[in-house]
C-alpha cells in the first residue's frame, strides 16, 4: 500500500463511524520502490489530498522528511518539495502491518502489500 492510497481511505463503512479518517498506520514492514518522477502528475495530485492525513501517514511510517505543517503556496514550483512528496506518496509502500480506525480502533490488516478492508456483516 502506497501512502497516497492511505490518504483516500476511511473506515466510515463501519456502523456508527462518522469520519473514520485518517486511519492510523502501524507499519511492520516498509519497502521503497523506484518510480519515475513526474512533476506535473504529482502537482496535480496534491490538491486532491488531505494534507494533515498526509503528514500523519508520513509520521506513522517514519518518513516525515521535514514536511511543512500546511501545504505551502506555490508548491508547484518547489521542486524539492515535489520530489519529497513524490517519494512519500508513491515510493514508500507498506508491505505488512495494519490500519486502525480512529473511532473504533478496529484494525484492518495489510499483508503482502494489500490492505484488507472487508467488514464483517455485523459491523455494517
Amino acid at each position: 500500500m502506497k501512502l497516497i492510497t492511505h490518504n483516500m481511505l476511511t473506515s466510515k463503512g463501519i456502523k456508527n463511524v462518522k469520519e473514520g479518517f485518517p486511519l492510523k498506520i502501524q507499519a511492520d514492514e516498509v519497502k521503497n520502490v523506484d518510480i519515475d518522477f513526474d512533476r506535473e502528475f504529482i502537482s496535480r495530485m496534491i490538491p486532491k489530498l488531505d494534507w494533515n492525513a498526509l503528514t500523519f501517514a508520513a509520521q506513522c511510517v517514519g518518513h516525515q522528511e521535514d514536511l511543512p505543517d500546511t501545504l505551502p503556496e506555490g508548491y508547484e514550483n518547489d521542486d524539492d518539495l515535489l520530489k519529497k512528496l513524490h517519494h512519500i506518496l508513491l515510493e514508500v509502500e507498506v508491505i505488512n502491518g495494519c490500519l486502525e480506525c480512529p473511532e473504533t480502533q478496529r484494525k484492518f490488516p495489510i499483508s503482502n502489500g494489500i490492505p484488507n478492508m472487508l467488514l464483517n456483516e455485523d459491523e455494517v
Partner: protein
Amino acid sequence: MENTKRDIYKAQRKIKRCISILQSDMPDIHISHIPTKHVFIANAGLTTNADESSLVELITSIGCGLEALTLIPGKQYSFASFSSCDQAQTVLMAAHGQLDVRGSASPVYMSYVDKVPTDPSPIQFKFPPGLMVVEDFISAKEEIQLMHLIDWGDNPLDSAEGSVLKHRQVRHFGYEFKYSSNSVDKEHPLAQRIPPVMTPIIQRIVEQGYMPVGPDQLTVNRYLPGQGIPSHVDTHSSFMDEILSLSVGGGVNMDFRYVSGNSNEGTKDKPSHYVVYLPPRSLCVMTGPARYEWSHGICPRMTDVVPNKNSTTGLQLLPREERVSFTFRKVRQGECWCQNASVCDSYNKNSKSVPQDEKNKCASPTMLDDRIAAKLEREHVLQVYDQIASHFSVTRHKPWPQVLEFVCSLPRGSMLLDVGCGNGKYMGHNRQVFQVGCDTSSELMKICYARGFEVLTSNCLQLPYRDSLFDAAVCIAVIHHLATEERRLGAIAEIVRVLSIGGHGLIYVWAMEQQRGKKKSTYLKQNKVNRHDTQYEELLLNDDEKLRINEQNMRRKVVCEGQYNERNHDSIKVGTSGASSLPLHINRTEFMQQDMLVPWKLRPLKKKELNCDRRGQYEKEFGTSHRCRDNRLHTNGPSADTLQTTMLDNTVKENGQNKSNRKGLPTETGPDPVFHRFYHVFKQGELEALCTRLNVNIVKSYYDEGNWCIIFEKIS
C-alpha cells in the same frame, strides 16, 4: 288520475331502493329534498347500457343547462349536473318516473344530491407494473390477414388442436396450453408448429425487444361479443417471463388483479384491480410483476367502458366486436426462480423440504433477505472467485475496447477507481492517471499486486474511500453478481458517493438479451467454437490455426453435451444459501431467467500458465499479454470423450449429494471441478432505472457485446 298516483308511488318506492344502494356505494353523497344543481339518475348508467349520448338526448329533450354527466363504470346509475337549481328541477319534474332513456323499457328515477362523485372511477385504468401496451403493433392489412388465418369453420371441432371452450374457441401451436392448469406438457409438443405466416410478426417482437428470443408456443383465441376468459396467472415453471397478447379485430378491457398473497403487501394501499384497454392491433406485453404476480382475465360482456379523453366523462362505452387474440409464449426449460411462495409453483415444489420460517424469509423475489443475499454472494461469488482466481486470470487479458477508451480518455492527474477490478484487466493502461482497484476476492488482489497495481480487498457495498474523491470510476461486470435490487442499487450509490462532482462513472453488466435483432453476442457465438471453459468477457483469437484444428473435436462435444444438459436441465439443481434454489444456466445459450448460477469449469493450469501468471510483473513490463494467450491456446483441455464423462460425473455427484452439503464448491477432487457463480442478468432499461434513482446525469447508455452499459456524471 289513479294511474298517475300509482306511478308516483312506484317511482318513490323505486328511487328509495336506489338511494340506499347509492348510500352504501358512496356514503359521502347526500340526498337533498330541495332542488340542487345535481341530479342522481338511479337506473340509467353504464351497466344498463345507457351512455352519454342517450342521456344527453333525454335531458336536452326536456331543457337545457346541462353542464356535466358523470357515468360510473360498473354501476347502473349516473349523475347530471346543471348550471342552476331551476334547470335541474325542470328536468327532474319532467323525467322522474315518466320518461325513459332510449333503448330502456322503464322510466328513469331521479333525486337531487348535494354533489357528484369527484373521482368517478372506482375502476382504475392503470397499468400494473411490468405491463406495456404497444399500440398499432401490426398494420390494418396484417390485421385482416390474421383475422382470416384460422378457419374456425362451421364445426369448430374440426381440428385436433382446437376446441370450443365454454366461452370461446381456441387453437394451439407448438404446445397445447392447458387451461385446467395454465401450463403446457413440455414433453409432448404438438405436431403443429407456429405457422410460418407469423414469422414477420415474431421477428418484429424479437427485434423490438419484447421477447429476448422467439416464442415456441402460440394460442389463438376467438372471442365473440359477450365472451371472456377467467382470470389466471400463467404457470411460472411453464413459461418464460414475457407473455404477449396481440389483439386482432376488436379491442377489449383486460382485468388485472394482484394475486400475490404476501401478507405484508397491504392491499389497502395497493389497489388490487386495474383495468387495461387493449385496442385492436395492439400488443400487450406482460413481464415481471404483471406476468408473475397479477392475474389477467376478460369479463364476459357485450360492452366495455374505456377511457376516452375527448368525452366529457373521460369515458366511452364501446360495444365488443369479434376479437381474435394471439398469445405468444416461450416454454421455460428448468424452473422459475421468483421465490414468490404464493404464486410460484417452482418455488413451492423446490422448497417442500425447507422449514417454514426459512421459507418466509425469502417469500418475495425482489426482497430476498439481505442476510441470505450476502450469504449467496459469499458462497457463489467471493468463494468461487477465490478458488478460480488463477484460471480466471489467464482467461482475462483482452480488455473490452470501449472500456479501454473510457479509461484512456481520462486527463493527466485524474484519480481513477476500478470497483471489482478482478485481475486488473483495466489497470495500467493509462499511465497519466492514478488508478486504484478493489475487489472482494483476496486471491485476485494478489494477482493484481503481483502485476504492480495498487489494490485492496473490499466489498463494493462498503467502498473504503472518502466521499467525492475520484475523477472517474469503472465497474465492469460486477453489479450483476449482487443478489437483490437493493444491493445492486447500493453498490452504484457507493460509486456515486466516492466520485467527485462532475466525475464520471462507467458500469457494465451482463445483459439478459444476448441477441439483438439477428446479431448474437460474442458469448453466444462462442458456442460454435465452444471454448467451454472460458467465459463471456473473453474475446478469442479466432485467427489462431490451432484453435481451428481443435474446433472440430469440440463440435462433437457440443452436440453430446447440449443434448445431455437439455435432458437433465430440470433435475440439475444446485443447493445454495438459505432456502433458495437457483436454476443452472447452460453456458453459451440464451438466458432463461434473470437470476441463476453460471457454471465455471475449472481447468487445471498448465505449468506454463502458472509461470505466466506469477510473472505478472514481467508481463506488465512488456505491455501485452501474448504469453498468456499463447499458453492458453496450447492447452486444449481434455478430449471430447473425457469431457463428456466429466460432465456426467459432476452431475451425478451433485444430484446425489445432500442438499445442505452442496455449497457449489466441489467437495471431491475430480478432474475439472465445476463452480457456480451467481448472476443477475439485466434487462434493457434496468441499469438506467437504477441510476436514475441516484444523483447523476446519464451521459450515455448503450449495449456492447451482450452487456448493458452506462456512463453517468455525478451532479451534486
